[in-house]
Protein backbone atom coordinates (compact mmCIF):
# COMPACT_ATOMS: atom_id res chain seq x y z
CA UNK A 1 0.00 0.00 0.00
CA UNK A 2 2.82 2.38 0.85
CA UNK A 3 4.52 1.74 -2.45
CA UNK A 4 1.21 2.26 -4.23
CA UNK A 5 0.64 5.64 -2.57
CA UNK A 6 4.23 6.66 -3.13
CA UNK A 7 4.02 5.97 -6.85
CA UNK A 8 0.75 7.87 -7.13
CA UNK A 9 2.29 10.81 -5.35
CA UNK A 10 5.47 10.70 -7.38
CA UNK A 11 3.56 10.86 -10.67
CA UNK A 12 0.73 13.12 -9.61
CA UNK A 13 2.32 16.37 -10.72
CA UNK A 14 3.04 15.04 -14.17
CA UNK A 15 -0.55 13.79 -14.39
CA UNK A 16 -1.72 17.35 -13.70
CA UNK A 17 0.44 18.71 -16.53
CA UNK A 18 -0.81 16.04 -18.94
CA UNK A 19 -4.41 16.69 -17.91
CA UNK A 20 -4.06 20.43 -18.43
CA UNK A 21 -2.66 19.74 -21.91
CA UNK A 22 -5.61 17.51 -22.70
CA UNK A 23 -8.21 20.03 -21.54
CA UNK A 24 -6.46 22.78 -23.49
CA UNK A 25 -6.49 20.63 -26.61
CA UNK A 26 -10.20 19.83 -26.45
CA UNK A 27 -11.07 23.42 -25.63
CA UNK A 28 -8.93 24.91 -28.42
CA UNK A 29 -10.23 22.40 -30.94
CA UNK A 30 -13.90 22.92 -30.16
CA UNK A 31 -13.51 26.69 -30.44
CA UNK A 32 -13.17 26.23 -34.16
CA UNK A 33 -16.33 24.20 -34.62
CA UNK A 34 -18.51 26.95 -36.06
CA UNK A 35 -16.11 27.57 -38.97
CA UNK A 36 -16.04 23.88 -39.74
CA UNK A 37 -19.81 23.72 -39.61
CA UNK A 38 -20.14 26.36 -42.33
CA UNK A 39 -17.89 24.64 -44.88
CA UNK A 40 -19.38 21.32 -43.87
CA UNK A 41 -22.80 22.27 -45.20
CA UNK A 42 -21.46 22.57 -48.73
CA UNK A 43 -19.81 19.18 -48.35
CA UNK A 44 -23.01 17.61 -47.09
CA UNK A 45 -24.88 18.80 -50.16
CA UNK A 46 -22.24 17.30 -52.39
CA UNK A 47 -22.21 14.03 -50.53
CA UNK A 48 -25.86 13.46 -51.13
CA UNK A 49 -25.15 13.35 -54.85
CA UNK A 50 -22.30 10.88 -54.62
CA UNK A 51 -22.70 7.15 -55.14
CA UNK A 52 -22.65 5.15 -51.92
CA UNK A 53 -19.71 3.03 -53.09
CA UNK A 54 -17.29 5.92 -53.11
CA UNK A 55 -18.47 7.02 -49.69
CA UNK A 56 -17.89 3.55 -48.31
CA UNK A 57 -14.28 3.65 -49.54
CA UNK A 58 -13.80 6.86 -47.59
CA UNK A 59 -15.30 5.34 -44.46
CA UNK A 60 -18.36 7.56 -44.39
CA UNK A 61 -21.90 6.31 -44.49
CA UNK A 62 -24.41 8.17 -46.61
CA UNK A 63 -26.75 9.22 -43.82
CA UNK A 64 -24.03 10.86 -41.79
CA UNK A 65 -24.25 14.55 -41.11
CA UNK A 66 -20.68 15.72 -41.60
CA UNK A 67 -21.33 19.02 -39.90
CA UNK A 68 -22.43 17.48 -36.61
CA UNK A 69 -20.38 18.00 -33.46
CA UNK A 70 -19.87 14.28 -33.11
CA UNK A 71 -18.12 13.87 -36.45
CA UNK A 72 -16.04 16.93 -35.70
CA UNK A 73 -15.10 15.55 -32.30
CA UNK A 74 -14.11 12.22 -33.80
CA UNK A 75 -11.23 13.98 -35.59
CA UNK A 76 -9.70 14.47 -32.11
CA UNK A 77 -9.35 10.72 -31.61
CA UNK A 78 -5.91 10.69 -33.22
CA UNK A 79 -4.71 13.58 -31.03
CA UNK A 80 -5.86 11.73 -27.93
CA UNK A 81 -4.09 8.59 -29.08
CA UNK A 82 -0.82 10.44 -29.59
CA UNK A 83 -0.93 12.08 -26.16
CA UNK A 84 -2.02 8.94 -24.38
CA UNK A 85 0.45 6.52 -25.94
CA UNK A 86 3.30 8.80 -24.87
CA UNK A 87 1.85 9.28 -21.39
CA UNK A 88 1.14 5.65 -20.64
CA UNK A 89 4.27 4.10 -22.12
CA UNK A 90 6.54 6.62 -20.41
CA UNK A 91 4.67 6.07 -17.15
CA UNK A 92 5.19 2.34 -17.50
CA UNK A 93 8.91 2.76 -18.08
CA UNK A 94 9.29 5.19 -15.20
CA UNK A 95 7.56 3.23 -12.45
CA UNK A 96 9.76 0.20 -13.09
CA UNK A 97 13.06 1.80 -13.99
CA UNK A 98 13.08 4.69 -11.52
CA UNK A 99 14.56 2.75 -8.59
CA UNK A 100 17.76 2.02 -10.42
CA UNK A 101 17.82 5.41 -12.07
CA UNK A 102 17.52 7.19 -8.73
CA UNK A 103 19.77 4.61 -7.06
CA UNK A 104 17.04 3.68 -4.58
CA UNK A 105 16.75 0.02 -5.60
CA UNK A 106 18.58 -1.20 -2.50
CA UNK A 107 16.32 0.89 -0.32
CA UNK A 108 13.26 -0.73 -1.88
CA UNK A 109 14.61 -4.27 -1.75
CA UNK A 110 15.59 -4.26 1.90
CA UNK A 111 11.95 -3.67 2.78
CA UNK A 112 10.24 -6.81 4.05
CA UNK A 113 8.20 -7.41 0.90
CA UNK A 114 8.66 -9.64 -2.10
CA UNK A 115 9.77 -8.20 -5.38
CA UNK A 116 6.53 -9.35 -6.94
CA UNK A 117 4.53 -7.40 -4.34
CA UNK A 118 6.50 -4.25 -5.12
CA UNK A 119 5.79 -4.76 -8.84
CA UNK A 120 2.09 -5.36 -8.17
CA UNK A 121 1.85 -2.12 -6.21
CA UNK A 122 3.66 -0.23 -8.95
CA UNK A 123 1.51 -1.67 -11.74
CA UNK A 124 -1.68 -0.92 -9.81
CA UNK A 125 -0.53 2.65 -9.23
CA UNK A 126 0.23 3.07 -12.93
CA UNK A 127 -3.16 1.65 -13.91
CA UNK A 128 -4.86 4.04 -11.49
CA UNK A 129 -3.05 7.00 -13.02
CA UNK A 130 -3.87 5.89 -16.55
CA UNK A 131 -7.56 5.54 -15.63
CA UNK A 132 -7.47 8.96 -13.99
CA UNK A 133 -6.06 10.47 -17.18
CA UNK A 134 -8.74 8.71 -19.17
CA UNK A 135 -11.46 10.06 -16.89
CA UNK A 136 -10.10 13.58 -17.23
CA UNK A 137 -10.37 13.19 -21.00
CA UNK A 138 -13.89 11.79 -20.81
CA UNK A 139 -15.25 14.36 -18.37
CA UNK A 140 -13.63 17.38 -19.97
CA UNK A 141 -14.73 16.25 -23.45
CA UNK A 142 -18.31 15.63 -22.36
CA UNK A 143 -18.47 19.01 -20.65
CA UNK A 144 -16.83 21.01 -23.43
CA UNK A 145 -18.74 19.35 -26.27
CA UNK A 146 -22.13 19.80 -24.61
CA UNK A 147 -22.69 23.53 -25.32
CA UNK A 148 -21.82 23.00 -29.00
CA UNK A 149 -24.27 20.16 -29.41
CA UNK A 150 -27.51 21.42 -30.91
CA UNK A 151 -28.76 18.10 -32.28
CA UNK A 152 -30.79 17.21 -29.21
CA UNK A 153 -29.28 13.77 -28.76
CA UNK A 154 -26.67 13.58 -26.05
CA UNK A 155 -23.12 12.80 -27.10
CA UNK A 156 -22.00 11.70 -23.66
CA UNK A 157 -22.63 8.05 -24.54
CA UNK A 158 -20.61 8.07 -27.80
CA UNK A 159 -17.80 9.98 -26.09
CA UNK A 160 -17.77 7.34 -23.37
CA UNK A 161 -17.41 4.58 -25.97
CA UNK A 162 -14.56 6.47 -27.57
CA UNK A 163 -12.70 7.03 -24.31
CA UNK A 164 -13.22 3.36 -23.42
CA UNK A 165 -11.34 2.46 -26.60
CA UNK A 166 -8.65 4.91 -25.57
CA UNK A 167 -8.35 3.13 -22.22
CA UNK A 168 -7.71 -0.18 -24.00
CA UNK A 169 -4.89 1.41 -25.98
CA UNK A 170 -3.54 3.10 -22.86
CA UNK A 171 -3.36 -0.22 -21.00
CA UNK A 172 -1.61 -1.78 -24.00
CA UNK A 173 1.06 0.92 -24.10
CA UNK A 174 1.38 0.89 -20.33
CA UNK A 175 2.12 -2.84 -20.54
CA UNK A 176 4.76 -2.24 -23.20
CA UNK A 177 6.34 0.51 -21.13
CA UNK A 178 6.47 -1.73 -18.05
CA UNK A 179 8.04 -4.54 -20.06
CA UNK A 180 10.68 -2.24 -21.53
CA UNK A 181 11.38 -0.87 -18.08
CA UNK A 182 12.11 -4.36 -16.80
CA UNK A 183 13.91 -5.46 -19.95
CA UNK A 184 16.38 -2.67 -20.63
CA UNK A 185 19.44 -2.05 -18.56
CA UNK A 186 18.83 1.66 -18.06
CA UNK A 187 15.72 3.84 -18.03
CA UNK A 188 17.13 5.78 -20.98
CA UNK A 189 17.30 2.62 -23.09
CA UNK A 190 13.80 1.61 -22.01
CA UNK A 191 12.28 4.97 -22.94
CA UNK A 192 14.20 4.85 -26.22
CA UNK A 193 12.54 1.52 -27.03
CA UNK A 194 9.12 2.91 -26.13
CA UNK A 195 9.77 5.93 -28.37
CA UNK A 196 10.71 3.65 -31.25
CA UNK A 197 7.47 1.69 -30.82
CA UNK A 198 5.31 4.83 -30.74
CA UNK A 199 6.95 6.44 -33.77
CA UNK A 200 7.09 3.15 -35.68
CA UNK A 201 3.43 2.26 -35.18
CA UNK A 202 2.38 5.84 -35.95
CA UNK A 203 4.28 5.80 -39.25
CA UNK A 204 2.80 2.41 -40.09
CA UNK A 205 -0.63 3.93 -39.53
CA UNK A 206 0.18 6.69 -42.02
CA UNK A 207 1.31 4.11 -44.58
CA UNK A 208 -1.88 2.08 -44.21
CA UNK A 209 -3.95 5.27 -44.45
CA UNK A 210 -2.27 6.01 -47.75
CA UNK A 211 -2.74 2.53 -49.18
CA UNK A 212 -5.97 0.91 -48.10
CA UNK A 213 -4.90 -2.52 -49.45
CA UNK A 214 -2.48 -2.78 -46.57
CA UNK A 215 -5.21 -2.94 -43.96
CA UNK A 216 -4.40 -6.57 -43.16
CA UNK A 217 -1.45 -5.07 -41.29
CA UNK A 218 -3.81 -3.19 -38.97
CA UNK A 219 -3.08 -5.54 -36.10
CA UNK A 220 0.50 -4.25 -36.00
CA UNK A 221 -0.47 -0.68 -35.17
CA UNK A 222 -2.80 0.20 -32.29
CA UNK A 223 -3.40 3.55 -33.99
CA UNK A 224 -5.71 1.68 -36.36
CA UNK A 225 -7.48 -0.64 -33.92
CA UNK A 226 -10.54 1.56 -33.56
CA UNK A 227 -12.29 3.84 -36.01
CA UNK A 228 -13.62 6.84 -34.14
CA UNK A 229 -16.73 7.36 -36.27
CA UNK A 230 -17.78 3.71 -36.09
CA UNK A 231 -17.20 3.61 -32.36
CA UNK A 232 -19.24 6.73 -31.73
CA UNK A 233 -22.13 6.17 -34.11
CA UNK A 234 -22.49 2.43 -34.47
CA UNK A 235 -21.12 1.46 -31.06
CA UNK A 236 -18.91 -0.78 -33.12
CA UNK A 237 -15.90 -1.58 -30.96
CA UNK A 238 -13.96 -4.32 -32.69
CA UNK A 239 -13.75 -7.04 -30.05
CA UNK A 240 -10.80 -8.94 -31.61
CA UNK A 241 -8.63 -5.85 -31.17
CA UNK A 242 -9.80 -5.36 -27.59
CA UNK A 243 -8.86 -8.98 -26.87
CA UNK A 244 -5.55 -8.62 -28.70
CA UNK A 245 -4.69 -5.47 -26.73
CA UNK A 246 -5.59 -7.01 -23.39
CA UNK A 247 -3.69 -10.19 -24.14
CA UNK A 248 -0.63 -8.22 -25.26
CA UNK A 249 -0.80 -6.00 -22.19
CA UNK A 250 -1.27 -9.05 -19.92
CA UNK A 251 1.66 -10.87 -21.49
CA UNK A 252 3.83 -7.78 -21.20
CA UNK A 253 2.94 -7.40 -17.52
CA UNK A 254 3.61 -11.09 -16.84
CA UNK A 255 6.94 -10.63 -18.59
CA UNK A 256 7.62 -7.65 -16.35
CA UNK A 257 7.20 -9.80 -13.20
CA UNK A 258 9.36 -12.55 -14.64
CA UNK A 259 12.17 -10.26 -15.76
CA UNK A 260 12.15 -8.18 -12.59
CA UNK A 261 12.24 -11.30 -10.43
CA UNK A 262 15.50 -12.37 -12.06
CA UNK A 263 16.99 -8.94 -12.40
CA UNK A 264 20.34 -8.07 -10.90
CA UNK A 265 19.47 -4.62 -9.63
CA UNK A 266 22.29 -2.12 -9.58
CA UNK A 267 22.31 -0.12 -6.42
Amino acid at each position, binding site marked *: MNIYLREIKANFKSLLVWSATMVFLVLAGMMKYSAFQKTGEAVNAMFNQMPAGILAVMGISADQDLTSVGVFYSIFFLYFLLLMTVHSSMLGVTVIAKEERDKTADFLLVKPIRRSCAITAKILAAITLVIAYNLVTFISSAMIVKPFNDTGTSLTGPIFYLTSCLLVIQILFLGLGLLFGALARTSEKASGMATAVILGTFILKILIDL*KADLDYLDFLTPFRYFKAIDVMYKQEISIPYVILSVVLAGTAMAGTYWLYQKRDLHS
Partner: protein
Amino acid sequence: MMLLFEFRKSFRSWLNFTIGLLLTFTIFASFFDFFREDAALMDQLLQNFPEEFRAAFGFANVNLSEVEGYLSFIISYIVLVGAVYGMKLGVGLLSAEPREKTSDFLLSKPVRRWEIVAAKLEIALILLVAQALALFTLGLAEIKIIIKQPIDVGIFALLVFAMLLVQLFFLGIGSVVAAAASKIKSIMPVALGIVFFFFIIELVNESLHLKELTYLTPFAYFKGSSILTLRHYEWPLLAIDLTIFVVATGLSFWIYQRKDFHAV
Protein backbone atom coordinates in the same frame (compact mmCIF):
# COMPACT_ATOMS: atom_id res chain seq x y z
CA MET B 1 38.30 17.34 -24.08
CA MET B 2 34.76 18.30 -23.23
CA LEU B 3 33.84 18.13 -26.89
CA LEU B 4 35.26 14.67 -27.30
CA PHE B 5 33.58 13.42 -24.15
CA GLU B 6 30.16 14.75 -25.12
CA PHE B 7 30.58 13.42 -28.62
CA ARG B 8 31.33 9.90 -27.45
CA LYS B 9 28.44 10.03 -25.05
CA SER B 10 25.95 11.16 -27.69
CA PHE B 11 27.18 9.13 -30.63
CA ARG B 12 25.19 5.95 -29.98
CA SER B 13 21.84 7.67 -29.82
CA TRP B 14 22.78 9.81 -32.83
CA LEU B 15 23.42 6.63 -34.77
CA ASN B 16 20.16 5.05 -33.63
CA PHE B 17 18.11 8.06 -34.63
CA THR B 18 19.92 8.50 -37.94
CA ILE B 19 19.31 4.85 -38.80
CA GLY B 20 15.68 5.28 -37.70
CA LEU B 21 15.29 8.30 -39.96
CA LEU B 22 16.84 6.52 -42.92
CA LEU B 23 14.69 3.47 -42.28
CA THR B 24 11.54 5.59 -42.21
CA PHE B 25 12.60 7.30 -45.40
CA THR B 26 13.40 3.99 -47.10
CA ILE B 27 10.03 2.50 -46.21
CA PHE B 28 8.16 5.55 -47.45
CA ALA B 29 10.28 5.68 -50.63
CA SER B 30 9.74 2.01 -51.44
CA PHE B 31 5.98 2.52 -51.17
CA PHE B 32 5.93 5.26 -53.77
CA ASP B 33 5.27 3.03 -56.79
CA PHE B 34 2.68 1.23 -54.80
CA PHE B 35 0.79 4.40 -53.89
CA ARG B 36 1.05 6.14 -57.19
CA GLU B 37 -1.92 4.68 -59.02
CA ASP B 38 -4.17 5.02 -55.99
CA ALA B 39 -2.96 8.55 -55.46
CA ALA B 40 -3.73 9.59 -59.00
CA LEU B 41 -7.24 8.19 -58.71
CA MET B 42 -7.83 9.74 -55.33
CA ASP B 43 -6.53 13.05 -56.58
CA GLN B 44 -9.11 13.21 -59.34
CA LEU B 45 -11.83 12.35 -56.89
CA LEU B 46 -10.75 14.93 -54.37
CA GLN B 47 -10.46 17.77 -56.86
CA ASN B 48 -14.18 18.36 -56.33
CA PHE B 49 -13.99 18.81 -52.59
CA PRO B 50 -13.56 22.08 -50.76
CA GLU B 51 -10.14 22.69 -49.27
CA GLU B 52 -11.34 22.66 -45.65
CA PHE B 53 -12.93 19.28 -46.03
CA ARG B 54 -9.83 17.72 -47.54
CA ALA B 55 -7.73 19.12 -44.74
CA ALA B 56 -10.08 17.96 -42.01
CA PHE B 57 -10.03 14.38 -43.21
CA GLY B 58 -6.28 14.38 -43.62
CA PHE B 59 -5.95 14.38 -47.38
CA ALA B 60 -2.84 16.12 -48.53
CA ASN B 61 -3.09 19.17 -50.72
CA VAL B 62 -0.20 18.08 -52.93
CA ASN B 63 -0.19 15.68 -55.82
CA LEU B 64 0.95 12.40 -54.30
CA SER B 65 1.38 10.76 -57.68
CA GLU B 66 4.46 12.90 -58.42
CA VAL B 67 7.79 12.29 -56.71
CA GLU B 68 8.18 15.81 -55.35
CA GLY B 69 4.58 15.91 -54.13
CA TYR B 70 4.99 12.57 -52.42
CA LEU B 71 8.28 13.58 -50.81
CA SER B 72 6.86 16.86 -49.60
CA PHE B 73 4.04 14.91 -47.96
CA ILE B 74 6.17 12.28 -46.23
CA ILE B 75 8.74 14.78 -45.05
CA SER B 76 6.43 15.92 -42.26
CA TYR B 77 6.79 12.51 -40.62
CA ILE B 78 10.55 12.50 -41.15
CA VAL B 79 10.60 15.92 -39.50
CA LEU B 80 8.62 14.51 -36.55
CA VAL B 81 11.22 11.79 -35.93
CA GLY B 82 14.01 14.32 -36.35
CA ALA B 83 12.33 16.75 -33.97
CA VAL B 84 12.19 14.09 -31.25
CA TYR B 85 15.96 13.72 -31.62
CA GLY B 86 16.56 17.47 -31.58
CA MET B 87 14.53 17.82 -28.40
CA LYS B 88 16.24 14.83 -26.80
CA LEU B 89 19.63 16.42 -27.51
CA GLY B 90 18.51 19.78 -26.18
CA VAL B 91 17.03 18.41 -22.97
CA GLY B 92 19.74 15.79 -22.50
CA LEU B 93 22.94 17.77 -22.82
CA LEU B 94 22.50 20.46 -20.19
CA SER B 95 20.66 18.22 -17.75
CA ALA B 96 23.26 15.44 -17.82
CA GLU B 97 25.40 16.54 -14.87
CA PRO B 98 22.62 17.31 -12.36
CA ARG B 99 21.01 13.98 -13.27
CA GLU B 100 24.17 11.97 -12.90
CA LYS B 101 25.23 13.93 -9.83
CA THR B 102 28.49 14.96 -11.48
CA SER B 103 27.90 18.74 -11.50
CA ASP B 104 30.61 19.43 -8.97
CA PHE B 105 33.06 17.37 -10.98
CA LEU B 106 32.34 19.32 -14.16
CA LEU B 107 32.13 22.72 -12.52
CA SER B 108 35.41 22.33 -10.66
CA LYS B 109 37.25 22.04 -13.98
CA PRO B 110 39.16 25.15 -14.99
CA VAL B 111 36.65 26.21 -17.62
CA ARG B 112 34.02 28.90 -17.53
CA ARG B 113 30.40 27.93 -17.37
CA TRP B 114 29.62 29.54 -20.69
CA GLU B 115 32.34 27.44 -22.23
CA ILE B 116 30.57 24.33 -20.97
CA VAL B 117 27.29 25.41 -22.55
CA ALA B 118 29.08 26.40 -25.74
CA ALA B 119 30.82 23.03 -26.01
CA LYS B 120 27.56 21.17 -25.51
CA LEU B 121 25.68 23.24 -28.05
CA GLU B 122 28.56 22.92 -30.49
CA ILE B 123 28.33 19.15 -30.29
CA ALA B 124 24.57 19.32 -30.74
CA LEU B 125 24.96 21.45 -33.86
CA ILE B 126 27.59 19.13 -35.32
CA LEU B 127 25.40 16.09 -34.71
CA LEU B 128 22.30 17.69 -36.21
CA VAL B 129 24.08 19.00 -39.30
CA ALA B 130 25.74 15.61 -39.80
CA GLN B 131 22.34 13.95 -39.51
CA ALA B 132 20.78 16.24 -42.10
CA LEU B 133 23.71 15.68 -44.47
CA ALA B 134 23.47 11.92 -44.03
CA LEU B 135 19.76 12.00 -44.76
CA PHE B 136 20.32 14.25 -47.77
CA THR B 137 23.05 12.18 -49.43
CA LEU B 138 21.73 8.73 -48.61
CA GLY B 139 18.14 9.84 -49.27
CA LEU B 140 19.12 11.11 -52.70
CA ALA B 141 20.82 7.81 -53.44
CA GLU B 142 17.73 5.94 -52.32
CA ILE B 143 15.51 8.00 -54.57
CA LYS B 144 17.80 7.16 -57.49
CA ILE B 145 17.82 3.46 -56.66
CA ILE B 146 14.27 2.87 -55.45
CA ILE B 147 12.08 5.43 -57.16
CA LYS B 148 14.18 5.73 -60.32
CA GLN B 149 12.73 9.05 -61.35
CA PRO B 150 14.47 12.35 -61.82
CA ILE B 151 13.80 14.76 -58.99
CA ASP B 152 14.59 18.38 -58.31
CA VAL B 153 17.62 18.21 -56.02
CA GLY B 154 17.05 21.77 -54.83
CA ILE B 155 13.56 20.92 -53.58
CA PHE B 156 14.85 17.80 -51.87
CA ALA B 157 17.57 19.82 -50.16
CA LEU B 158 14.99 22.35 -48.95
CA LEU B 159 12.82 19.55 -47.59
CA VAL B 160 15.67 17.83 -45.74
CA PHE B 161 17.10 21.02 -44.29
CA ALA B 162 13.61 21.97 -43.11
CA MET B 163 14.11 19.10 -40.68
CA LEU B 164 17.33 20.68 -39.44
CA LEU B 165 15.58 24.01 -38.92
CA VAL B 166 12.80 22.37 -36.89
CA GLN B 167 15.44 20.50 -34.90
CA LEU B 168 17.13 23.81 -34.08
CA PHE B 169 13.86 25.11 -32.65
CA PHE B 170 13.57 22.09 -30.38
CA LEU B 171 17.26 22.14 -29.49
CA GLY B 172 16.77 25.70 -28.26
CA ILE B 173 13.57 24.98 -26.32
CA GLY B 174 15.09 21.81 -24.89
CA SER B 175 18.23 23.50 -23.63
CA VAL B 176 16.22 26.24 -21.92
CA VAL B 177 14.06 23.61 -20.21
CA ALA B 178 17.16 21.68 -19.15
CA ALA B 179 18.96 24.78 -17.88
CA ALA B 180 15.92 26.05 -15.99
CA ALA B 181 14.89 22.79 -14.33
CA SER B 182 16.83 21.97 -11.19
CA LYS B 183 16.95 18.32 -12.20
CA ILE B 184 15.40 16.31 -15.02
CA LYS B 185 15.19 12.69 -14.01
CA SER B 186 14.47 11.23 -17.41
CA ILE B 187 14.84 12.90 -20.77
CA MET B 188 12.46 11.08 -23.06
CA PRO B 189 9.12 11.70 -21.27
CA VAL B 190 9.83 15.45 -21.28
CA ALA B 191 11.15 15.45 -24.84
CA LEU B 192 8.39 13.30 -26.34
CA GLY B 193 5.67 15.13 -24.45
CA ILE B 194 6.74 18.55 -25.70
CA VAL B 195 7.40 17.46 -29.30
CA PHE B 196 4.08 15.63 -29.57
CA PHE B 197 2.27 18.61 -28.09
CA PHE B 198 3.63 20.84 -30.87
CA PHE B 199 2.91 18.14 -33.44
CA ILE B 200 -0.72 17.90 -32.32
CA ILE B 201 -1.05 21.68 -32.54
CA GLU B 202 0.09 21.33 -36.14
CA LEU B 203 -2.46 18.55 -36.75
CA VAL B 204 -5.18 20.80 -35.33
CA ASN B 205 -3.89 23.67 -37.44
CA GLU B 206 -3.97 21.52 -40.56
CA SER B 207 -7.36 19.94 -40.00
CA LEU B 208 -9.21 23.01 -38.84
CA HIS B 209 -7.42 25.72 -40.77
CA LEU B 210 -6.54 27.74 -37.72
CA LYS B 211 -4.18 30.24 -39.27
CA GLU B 212 -3.30 31.72 -35.88
CA LEU B 213 -1.75 28.43 -34.81
CA THR B 214 0.82 28.54 -37.62
CA TYR B 215 3.09 30.77 -35.56
CA LEU B 216 2.84 28.54 -32.52
CA THR B 217 4.29 25.34 -33.89
CA PRO B 218 7.56 24.81 -35.76
CA PHE B 219 5.96 21.94 -37.68
CA ALA B 220 3.97 24.57 -39.56
CA TYR B 221 6.97 26.75 -40.42
CA PHE B 222 8.35 24.68 -43.27
CA LYS B 223 5.48 22.90 -44.92
CA GLY B 224 6.24 20.57 -47.82
CA SER B 225 3.40 21.98 -49.88
CA SER B 226 4.62 25.57 -49.57
CA ILE B 227 8.23 24.60 -50.27
CA LEU B 228 6.99 22.90 -53.41
CA THR B 229 5.13 25.95 -54.72
CA LEU B 230 7.46 28.70 -53.49
CA ARG B 231 10.77 26.88 -54.06
CA HIS B 232 12.13 28.62 -50.98
CA TYR B 233 11.20 28.85 -47.32
CA GLU B 234 8.69 31.43 -46.18
CA TRP B 235 11.03 34.15 -44.95
CA PRO B 236 8.97 35.45 -41.98
CA LEU B 237 8.55 31.93 -40.63
CA LEU B 238 12.22 31.15 -41.17
CA ALA B 239 13.04 34.32 -39.28
CA ILE B 240 10.77 33.31 -36.39
CA ASP B 241 12.34 29.87 -36.25
CA LEU B 242 15.88 31.19 -36.13
CA THR B 243 14.98 33.95 -33.68
CA ILE B 244 13.50 31.43 -31.29
CA PHE B 245 16.62 29.29 -31.60
CA VAL B 246 18.96 32.22 -30.95
CA VAL B 247 16.91 33.65 -28.09
CA ALA B 248 16.45 30.25 -26.48
CA THR B 249 20.11 29.32 -26.62
CA GLY B 250 21.06 32.80 -25.38
CA LEU B 251 18.65 32.32 -22.52
CA SER B 252 20.11 28.95 -21.63
CA PHE B 253 23.62 30.51 -21.43
CA TRP B 254 22.22 33.16 -19.13
CA ILE B 255 20.36 30.71 -16.88
CA TYR B 256 23.25 28.26 -16.71
CA GLN B 257 25.59 31.06 -15.65
CA ARG B 258 23.38 31.83 -12.65
CA LYS B 259 22.27 28.34 -11.79
CA ASP B 260 22.75 26.99 -8.29
CA PHE B 261 23.98 23.44 -8.76
CA HIS B 262 23.53 20.88 -6.04
CA ALA B 263 26.74 19.25 -4.98
CA VAL B 264 26.51 15.62 -3.98
